[in-house]
């Protein structure tokens, strides 16, 4: 086995030379300290200072949340929307390993990495948002567990999934540091983690919807339905596909790599189908609940139409077969669908929410926004470091073995 040192030039293949197995993944290499890197670092620093303020002065010192809106953007954006962005790893693992579509493999590892950061940093946001964060570990202790709580299920599921994602991503580390034996051993067990990696998001992404069922009349009839778990699962899937398309196009532009055209075409198709199912089911749900009039006057009507228009526009862009092979259309279509998903989840958690005894209003404070920006910047920062130094991206022209 060659020494670890042989891997240290950024553009060298991750696998030890002389091995019969050829690693299809390669670190991208290049300088680490770039302009985007420094800008992200600046935002991380600002976010850090604001977090310190929150821990010294209480939640109200930084955030605009109140007893009317006890959950603000840290929950809705960082956790509920952020974790949907983390569903890229979920849908790609499903396609590659469960449906056995080997051609999707080039997209799996970057997707798993994006998920790992998405979930890891959602966890960080939760710690910032928890009013009694020092008791956080009670979530994991059986003698505190309250099995009727949907949040307990979400919490346990997400915690386990973060571990699963780490294991799923571990081969990249093991390859980078030439730990061939460990990699092979892990590979033999990896199928267990792949299976869990598909089961867990199915559970907690749908439960994120179930979480709002109990608020009852405090959620506008535009969004309050027993189908919330189904809709949250569908948005997780369609956003997962959206992220894969969006991220692949972005990576090909930013790092000047060719797109994985044939594969992206199919992912875009799946995104289109899932979005169509979602939109149609929304209308069926209105009809079943006798709420077909809700889109014309219920609380949050405007944002319902924004949400629906984004989904429809996104579908229209990628509807022509040809569009699904063009970078521009793929980028626009996936962006629109992702925005639709963002607005849907925002609507369920904030816009459509009607506090019990009003009047209350909520709009995030600048400081609150910058905490979220800081967490997102940290995500970008870590992503840049990882893809440049670890074998994450498929090597240009590499065939899957």
């Amino acid at each position: 086995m060659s020494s670890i040192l042989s891997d240290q030039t950024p553009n060298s293949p991750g696998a030890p030379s002389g091995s019969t197995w050829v690693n299809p993944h390669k670190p991208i290499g290049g300088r680490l300290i770039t302009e985007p890197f420094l800008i992200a670092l600046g935002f991380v620093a600002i976010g850090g200072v604001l977090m310190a303020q929150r821990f010294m002065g209480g939640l109200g010192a930084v955030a605009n949340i109140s007893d009317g809106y006890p959950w603000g953007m840290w929950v809705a954006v960082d956790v509920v929307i952020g974790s949907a962005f983390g569903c890229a790893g979920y849908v790609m693992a499903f396609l590659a390993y469960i449906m056995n579509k080997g051609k999707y493999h080039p997209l799996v590892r970057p997707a798993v990495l994006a998920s790992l950061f998405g979930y890891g940093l959602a966890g960080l946001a939760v710690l910032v948002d928890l009013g009694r964060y020092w008791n956080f570990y009670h979530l994991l202790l059986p003698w505190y567990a309250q099995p009727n709580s949907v949040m307990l299920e979400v919490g346990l599921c997400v915690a386990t999934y973060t571990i699963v994602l780490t294991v799923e991503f571990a081969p990249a580390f093991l390859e980078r540091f030439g730990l061939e034996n460990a990699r092979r051993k892990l590979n033999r067990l990896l199928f267990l983690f792949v299976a869990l990696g598909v089961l867990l998001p199915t559970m907690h992404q749908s439960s994120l919807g179930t979480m709002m069922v109990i608020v009852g009349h405090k959620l506008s009839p535009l969004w309050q339905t027993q189908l919330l778990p189904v809709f949250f699962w569908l948005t997780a899937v369609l956003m997962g596909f959206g992220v894969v398309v969006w991220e692949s196009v972005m990576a090909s532009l930013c790092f000047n790599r060719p797109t994985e055209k044939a594969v992206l075409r199919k992912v875009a198709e799946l995104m289109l189908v899932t979005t169509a199912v979602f939109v149609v089911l929304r209308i069926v749900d209105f009809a079943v609940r006798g709420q077909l009039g809700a889109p014309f006057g219920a609380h949050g009507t405007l944002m319902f139409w924004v949400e629906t228009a984004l989904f429809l526009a996104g579908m229209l862009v990628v509807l022509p077969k040809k569009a699904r092979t063009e970078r521009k259309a793929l980028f626009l279509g996936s962006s629109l669908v992702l925005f639709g998903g963002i607005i849907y989840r925002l609507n369920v958690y904030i816009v459509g929410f009607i506090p019990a005894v009003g009047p209350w209003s909520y709009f995030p404070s600048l400081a609150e926004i910058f905490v979220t920006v800081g967490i997102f910047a940290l995500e970008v920062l870590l992503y840049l470091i990882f893809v440049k130094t670890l074998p994450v991206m498929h090597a240009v022209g590499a065939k899957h073995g």
Partner: protein
Amino acid sequence: MTLSRRNFLSKAARGSAAAATAACAAVAAAPEANALQRPPKPMPAEAVGLLYDSTLCIGCKACVKACKDANGMPVEVAPDQTAWNGGEWDTPVELSGKTLNVIKAYTNGTMAEKDRETDGFAFIKRQCLHCADPSCVSVCPVTAMTKDARTGIVSYNPDACIGCRYCVLSCPFGVPKYEYDSPTGQIRKCQLCKHRLAENQLPACSDVCPTGATLFGRTEDLKAEAKRRVALKPGERTHYPRGDIAGKVGGRRDGHEATVRVAYQQHIYGEKELGGTQCLAVSAVPFDKLNLPTNVPETGYPTVSEGIQHTLYAGMVGPATLLAGLVYLAHRNTKDHDVD
């Protein structure tokens, strides 16, 4: 395993459609015929609570002061009150992390007469209603909110609480509050002065109420009293008890004789709302005017959310079956080549 693209997509689409249909059928059935709904929880046999009679309340707020003293809560001065209140008066207008019990006023037009909807005014007392099927208890992931099996009092344990504020979000009556101005904030809500009840003393609000507008007792007795009151006609003479309706807790108190001045609404708030509450209210002004949610189901929202959750996860059979299938497929599809 080879599938053409079209074949694969149509298979995937058909599979998803079947799964979605099954899921929809399971969760979207009409509430009354909903197999997913968990049965409502009965009122505990020895449930205790308060009966608030808006027509008897004179708005003196002695209960607000007594509650603060009994529970060690601070004076509350809203930001828009600082011009005339430097902190010497307690002037809460709503429940908060500083106020567990508050008297609010409804006003309309000239406010000429008490307990009249138009050109009148009325009072309403807000505190925890101690639901038979409380959402706050159902949502709490770490058992910090609990309902006493015997008395039904809903209590909070700050040592268990992680501060997620799901209870604040979910309460249909807007009762639990959090202390946003403290780095170690906790949830605050009325716990029916359980520390005083333990010493055979009345909850502070019902202890000091001069007119018996806030009456303590077993929920069953209070419900009977509420039914008696809403049946009263204006002009009738009647007796209004004070303190504990049974005269046991805190000792026997004299009530008072009075002529019924106004017609009661034929609505006992808390009798049916969301599965029933241990604290009840009667009034001459409709309850929606008093800012209480009125158009609500007769079963608590936990019956729906727990119904969905416990059906999908019953015995963890569903997830276990799904996992077994996934493990099989993942194993088959990865054994002959490197996973990456």
